[in-house]
Each structure stands twice: as C-alpha cells, then as structure tokens.
C-alpha cells in the first residue's frame, strides 16, 4: 500500500510547496505524495500501537469516499459523526469533504434529545458512529428524525443481527467503494479537484451557555489558513507528535488533530479508550499538547495527593526541589537571569525530580503545550512551567477557528492570554468588549442569520461577548463575559467569573457560582472537589458517607471559609474590586452536572439556569437565615431521576479593608 517514494520529505514544516492545496482532501493527497511513508495516525488497539502512513490514509479515504458516493452521499449532504477519537472517524470527515459534503462531529455523551436537535438542524442524511451503543441511540432517534437515512458503524460487535437495510459497517462501505473506484476511474481525483478553499468544510455545534446549540460554519480557508499561520508561528514540524483525546465535536480538536496535522504533516495518535489516556500519553510521548486547565489541575492534584503518601525522604526531596523550581524554573524557561546556585540546584533537580516526574506524566517530550477555555490558576500554571514544560495560554473561540491571541515564548504570564496570533487583529470596543478579525472568522451560523448578524459585523469583525483590556505590554487580559459583568448596589464592579476562578484555583473547590448584580453584597455557592476534600478528610480522620455528607461537615465549611477569606484578602488589595468581597456562602449538596443542565458539555456553568434552579438558596444567602432545606432533582447517567434532600448551612466570611465596616452593619 505504501508504495510511494521511499525518501521522506527533507526537513519538516515546509509548507511552501503545498500552498496550492486549499482543502483537506488536497492536503491529504499532497501528504501521501511527499511524505507517504511517514505515519499519519496511530491508534492503540489490542494493546499495540497500530500506525497508518499518509499513503494508507489516502487509500482509506479514497475507498470510503467512493463507498459513500455509491450509497448516494453527494454535494451538500451532511455526515454526522459520533464516537471517540478514532482514525477512521477523522478520515470519514475528509471523505465527506472529498464529495463536497459537510461533516458534523457531535458530542457522543449528549443525551438523545440534544443529539436529535443537532441531527435535525443540520439535516444529516448520513451518520457514522463508533459502536452498538451509538447505533442504538441513533436508532431510537431515527424514528423522530426523518432526514436521517443511512447509518454506518465502525465496531460490528453485537450488531450482527441488526438486519436494517440502512445499516452498514465501515468495512462494507469500503468494499463497495473499492468496486465503485474500479468502475469509475478518475472519480476520486475529479472530486478532490472540485473542492475549493472558500467552500464549507465543517459544521461545529457550540454548546453555548444559553439557548440551543448553534452550528458554526467554517470553510477550508478558515481552518487551513489559520493552521498555516500557527504552524509557522510555533514552528510545528512533521516529526511532532500529538495525542487526540478531546471531543471531536470541539473546534480545538479539529485544528490540533486535523488541520495542523494535515498542514505540518505530523502524526496524531488516538488513545485506546478514554480511561487509558494517561497511560497512552506516557507511551506516545507527545511533543505538542493541548489540555484545558481542568486537566492540568487534575494531574497536579493527583501528583500532590500521591506525594502526601510518599516516604519522608522522597517527600522532603520533592518539596525542596519544587521550591527551587518555583523560584527559578519559569525564569530559566524564559531565559531570564537566575543566581548561579539556583541554576545548579535546578540542574540537579532536573535529574532527581523534574525529569522523572514529567516522564511519569508523559510530558517528557512536550515542546509546546497550550491551555485555554477557562482561566488557569497561577499555582497550577507555574507548577508546570517551573518543571520546564512550555505551557502557554491562548484565547480562542469556535468562531475564530480557535486562535485569537497566544502567548509568545518568553513572555508568558498566568493572568493574560498573550498577544494577537499571526494574521489576527484584535480591538477593544468602547463597551470593553473584545472584538477580532482574522482569516479564521467563521462563515455564518447555520440557518440562523439573525444571530450571525448580531455576532459578525459587515466588515468581518466578530463580537466575542468577552470583556477585557490590553495591559501596558500589549497582552490581552480577559475579565469575564461582558453580559455577566454587573454592578453591586453600592456601585462596585462585579465580575462573577473573575471571583469564581479565584475560588476554583483552590484544589478543594471544584465549582463556584457567585451572585452580586444589583445586590448589596456578593454571595457564593460552592461545590467541593470530592477527591481533594475526601483525601483531606481522611488525613483529618473525618468520617463521611458521601458527597452530600462530606460537603456539609462543619470542618469542611471551615476549610472553605479559609479559601473564601483568602480570596477576600486578595480582592481587598485591588481598589476596583475591593467592594466585591464575598460575605456569605454555602456548600451545595451535589456537584453541578451537565446531565442536570447546570453545566454545558464543556463544563461551563450555565449561570441563568443555576440562578433559577437554586433561587431559594440565593434568597436565603441574602436573608439572615443560617440554614435552608433543599430538595433537588438529579438525573442519573442512565436517564432515571431521583431526589436528594439536605439541610444546607449558610456561613459568613470575614471581609477586609474598607469593606469590613459595611459588612458588620449588614449583619446586625
């Protein structure tokens, strides 16, 4: 199969020669020609990493595209994709693009109702799914979803007796495709050549914190020009390694695992299952890595918990060298001056602690890592950078094909998101809203002209809805969603996300929701992190029976109060925000969950929903009650619902500075 020229393309990252390739199918053909023997994708299956070269990938796409054509898929059709990150699913997207169709990857953990909405809205006639579970889900939806005609599945297990004529296995489609290809020579080449850069490449449904998901239409030019710019900016080459483990429905995965890989020619590996990601990462050793802050945080929490259980010598060594790293690690990474002794200790620490630690986490070879989506805690950020891992923040959105701003090497700070990425213009509107214009700006929202007009101006500027400003050194700083920024009754600025992030930077607090707009003071609802607090409770010899019990314990309240008061002390030092210190808080009896509609699928808090659902609690926070009884409906993973009831205490927190006086008045 891999019969292409044996010589590898010399020196990676040279994108000049393929400047003409303006669609993914063309890039694939190009890659199969110039680097046909290099690995394009890998997947761990049966315990072994299986690799496919670019030539093999092209071969697969050729057959599958022809198979789709045989089944009647053509220009303007939509192919829905549901499943884990699998090479075949990525290739099926490109196959649809070959035929002028549009792939719509979907979140596979969505409940049937959400899926049905997207399928209907996108008018998907074809769907490709991973296994029986997804087939069953779509069969259930299909009755209510008349547009859906054909289902293709990857894993035949358990499906042998499903006799529906519209159900095909990938292998069967490939077989049909090979026959079709034989009978229609030149079909594939012609189809590939017909695609043009400005054509619609993909539709991504954004979960959105309000309302129905919107279908963001991105063209080949959007994705490929953005990818070219960033590949050049970050010096990505064909020998880089990437692990594709984030949902395929998310724009980031399409840029990192598809667009940038096709442009730079690097290999993308798919983990064996979602539970084995950390092991697989260690085996692959990615050089280019993306993770949302939550994942970095989880890894750090695990490391810290395990260090607590380590022997005394190891623990002492770890803490000593982590102190050294905190002092000078980031400075060494940024090539800034560092005292000689620290440099010496750091070198020793690299051998004894940092190196082995990075190795265990699978980060040894990481040359460049990005994080985005939420603010990252300064402690977490510094931890990784001080180990010598080049983690940087970026600010992006689906509407921008990810990149708006990125942090340049050597100018990385935890509280900004960097300078505009190559090819992107950013401006701050008078209202304080961040706006941008770039080659990556989306075409439109599918079947939603009104929202498109509200979001995108005539001359191509996109209104992000985020409030932010440029700091003196030209770095963008994001405070919050513009519409969420409010005012307290005494006139102080209230930026809920800013406060919540500060709270969530404590490992014990997993979620926080603050209230204060048009109120006298700020109040918060907090959710504990069961793992971190559970471990803490164990060390305190505190017995508990479950989440609700643990989060209601007085000692846990005390623990949370310390966190809240630290945030207050921090806020007191900022004249603009000193008035928004948190006076009262309570610990919620359950975790906020996407299944209950409290979070989006990307785990952002749906503020209006939470405010409505927990209206009683919020009123109690602004009354002089010191406890409240709640009953809440919870949705289990299998779709059943149940009730949890609890008696929630409400606790006061100390405030600092000028704000302390009105606080007392309020309480009396």
């Amino acid at each position, binding site marked *: 199969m891999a019969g292409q020229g044996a010589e590898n393309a010399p020196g990676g990252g040279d994108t000049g020669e393929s400047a003409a390739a303006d669609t993914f199918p063309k890039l694939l053909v190009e890659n199969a020609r110039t680097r046909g023997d290099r690995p394009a994708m890998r997947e761990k299956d*049966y*315990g072994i990493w299986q690799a496919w070269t670019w030539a093999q990938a092209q071969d697969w796409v050729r057959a599958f595209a022809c198979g789709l054509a045989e089944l009647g898929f053509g220009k303007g059709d939509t192919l829905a994709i549901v499943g884990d990150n699998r090479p075949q699913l990525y290739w099926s997207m490109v196959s649809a693009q070959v035929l002028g169709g549009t792939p719509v990857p979907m979140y596979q953990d969505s409940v049937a109702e959400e899926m049905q909405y997207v399928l209907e809205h996108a008018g998907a006639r074809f769907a490709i799914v991973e296994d029986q579970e997804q087939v*069953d889900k779509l069969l259930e939806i299909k009755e209510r979803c008349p547009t859906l005609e054909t289902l293709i599945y990857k894993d035949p297990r*358990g499906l*042998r*007796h*499903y*006799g529906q004529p519209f159900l095909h296995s990938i292998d069967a489609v490939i077989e049909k495709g090979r026959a079709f290809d034989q009978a229609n020579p030149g079909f594939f080449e012609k189809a590939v050549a017909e695609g043009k850069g400005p054509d619609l490449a993909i539709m991504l449904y954004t979960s959105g914190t309000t309302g129905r998901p919107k279908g963001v239409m991105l063209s080949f030019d959007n994705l490929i020009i953005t990818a070219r710019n960033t590949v050049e900016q970050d010096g990505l080459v064909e020998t880089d390694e990437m692990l594709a483990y984030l949902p395929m429905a998310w724009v980031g995965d399409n840029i990192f695992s598809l667009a940038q890989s096709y442009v730079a020619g690097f290999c993308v590996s798919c983990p064996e299952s979602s*539970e084995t990601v950390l092991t697989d990462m260690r085996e692959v050793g990615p050089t280019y890595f993306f993770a949302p802050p939550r994942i970095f945080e989880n890894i750090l929490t695990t490391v810290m918990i395990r260090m607590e259980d380590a022997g005394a010598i190891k623990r002492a060594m770890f803490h000593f060298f982590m102190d050294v790293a905190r002092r000078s690690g980031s400075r060494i990474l940024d090539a800034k001056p560092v005292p000689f002794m620290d440099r010496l200790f750091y070198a020793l620490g690299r051998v004894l602690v940092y190196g082995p630690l990075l190795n265990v986490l699978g980060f040894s070879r990481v040359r460049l890592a990005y994080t985005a989506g939420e603010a990252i805690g300064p402690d977490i950020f510094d931890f990784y950078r001080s180990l010598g891992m080049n983690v940087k923040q970026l600010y992006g959105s689906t509407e921008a094909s990810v990149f708006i701003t990125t942090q340049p090497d050597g100018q990385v700070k935890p509280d900004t998101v960097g300078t505009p990425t190559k090819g992107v213009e950013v401006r701050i509107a008078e209202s304080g809203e961040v706006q941008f214009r770039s080659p990556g700006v989306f075409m439109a929202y599918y079947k939603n002209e009104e929202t498109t007009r509200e979001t995108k101006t005539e001359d191509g500027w996109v209104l992000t809805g985020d409030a932010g400003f440029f700091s003196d050194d030209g770095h963008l700083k994001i405070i919050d969603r513009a519409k969420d920024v409010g005012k307290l009754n005494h006139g102080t600025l209230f930026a809920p996300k800013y406060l919540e992030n500060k709270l969530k930077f404590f490992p014990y607090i997993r979620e926080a929701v603050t209230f204060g707009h048009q109120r006298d003071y700020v109040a918060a609802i907090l959710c504990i992190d069961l793992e971190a607090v559970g471990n803490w409770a164990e060390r305190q010899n505190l017995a508990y029976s479950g989440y609700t019990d643990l989060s209601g314990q007085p000692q846990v309240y005390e623990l949370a109060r310390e966190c809240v008061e630290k945030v207050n002390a921090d806020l007191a030092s900022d004249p603009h925000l000193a008035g928004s210190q948190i006076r009262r808080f309570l610990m919620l009896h359950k975790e906020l969950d996407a299944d209950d509609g409290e979070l989006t699928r990307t785990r952002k808090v749906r503020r209006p929903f939470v405010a409505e659902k927990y209206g009683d609690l919020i009123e109690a926070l602004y009354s002089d009650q010191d406890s409240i009884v709640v009953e809440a409906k919870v949705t289990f993973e*299998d779709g059943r619902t149940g009730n949890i009831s609890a008696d929630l205490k409400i606790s006061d927190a100390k405030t600092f500075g000028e704000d302390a006086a009105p606080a007392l008045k309020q309480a009396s």
Partner: protein
Amino acid sequence: MAANGLIPQKKEGGVLLKAEDISLSFGGVKALSNVSFEVHEHQVLAIIGPNGAGKSSMLNCINGFYHPQEGRITYKGVTRKQMKPHDAAAQGIARTFQNIALFKGMNTLDNIMTGRNLKMKRNFLLQALYLGPALKEELEHREFVENIIDFLEIEHIRKTPVGKLPYGLQKRVELGRALAAEPDMLLLDEPMAGMNLEEKQDMCRYILDVNDEFGTTIVLIEHDMGVVMDISDHVVVLDYGRKIADGPPEEVRTNQDVIDAYLGVSHD
C-alpha cells in the same frame, strides 16, 4: 436491544450435554436426586432455585469436580466415566466461581493468560527461557488474550493487579480467563452476585455477546429473576435436589411448583 425488536433469531443446535438421573449425596445429605436435563448447543441455560437447592453441586458435577453416585453425563456424545476437572477443561468446559478465584497478586493480563495454559504446547523449560518457538507461541496467545481484553472492555486495567480492582471488574476478569480457554461450554456460577444495576446490565451484555459472537453454550446459576428471564433460552428449576420444572422462561414463570418453591410452601 429489546426496544428495537432486534432480539436475534437463534439457531439452537443438537444436544451438547445430557444429564440423566443424576444423584449425588454427601453422607446422608442428598444434594441431587434423579436430575435429568439437556443442554443444547448455542443455548443459554439457567439453573435456578432457592438456597441449598443443589445448583452449584450440579455445576460441579458437570465440570467433573464432584462425581455423582448415580446417573450419567453425556458430553458431545461421549458418556463419561470418572473424570477430573482438568479433563473437563481439556474437553472445552470452562467456568467461573461464585467466590472469585483469581490470582490476586497478578495483573489482569497475566490472569487471563493463565486461561491459555492448556493451549500452550511448548515445554516448561522453553517457556522459562522465553526462546524461539515458545516466544512465538506466547505472542499468539497474547494476541488472543488482547482480543478478549478488547471484547470485555478492560483495556484500562490491563496492568493492574486484580486484588486492587472493584468486585464487578474482578468478575469480568474471571469471565475473561474462562473465555481464554476457548470453551464450547461456559459455566457461570452467579456471575452477577453483588453487582449494582449498571454492572449487571454490562455483564448481561457480555454474556449475550459471548453466546452470540463465539457461539458458546452457556449454563449459568443466577438469583436475579429479572436477569434470568431476560437472557436465558431455557430454565431448569431445582428445589431440595429435585428438578421441579424445566422449560422456556415464560413457561417456568407461571409454573405453580416454582411459585411454591420460591414463596415457600410446607413440605409434608
């Protein structure tokens, strides 16, 4: 699956195992008396009954651990004489146990590899040295075991010592080890005991998939009536060592003797 009306039309084969007039007693205790039934190829057969009805004893007779004083067991057309459990294993009968019987200190992969033991042809010395033919053989077995790991979706615990695993997963590993022997007939002794609803659903799916994909005949003991009625093709009911009913689930469900046995009626 049932929701879609997709329950497969199964082709049951001929008689795979035939038990005739089995009686087994331990001293004065009669564990089984004159029990007869047939297991057809490709069938899922459930043996049910109240505690102490003789279900596990029956299973132990089938796999050669107990030797009934009376009666005959005919397996694949051959009526057996005295036999040992390892003979049963060599003939393609594998089983799992009511109390998990795994090697706690070994990882999942190694535990399942032990199930391949009877299939390994190379001698002990070559295996120890891990040379030539033994190496090649080991790789073939590893491939087979990886198929099972994939099938049971336990990739993430491949290298975890089984003693550290939760109960439901240990049960799944044990099923994996039994499958590694490529059995024609699989005996499952309470495969779902102590599991929560989700784990039970998973286990049902694996059992049906094994039956369907590999064509393995399954004999299982189970207390959860919902499970039994859902997944089995044929049910044998024992009470005080006697067979009181034998038939398809719908039929057994309405049998008065069975209802009495479960609700408790005084035995004169």
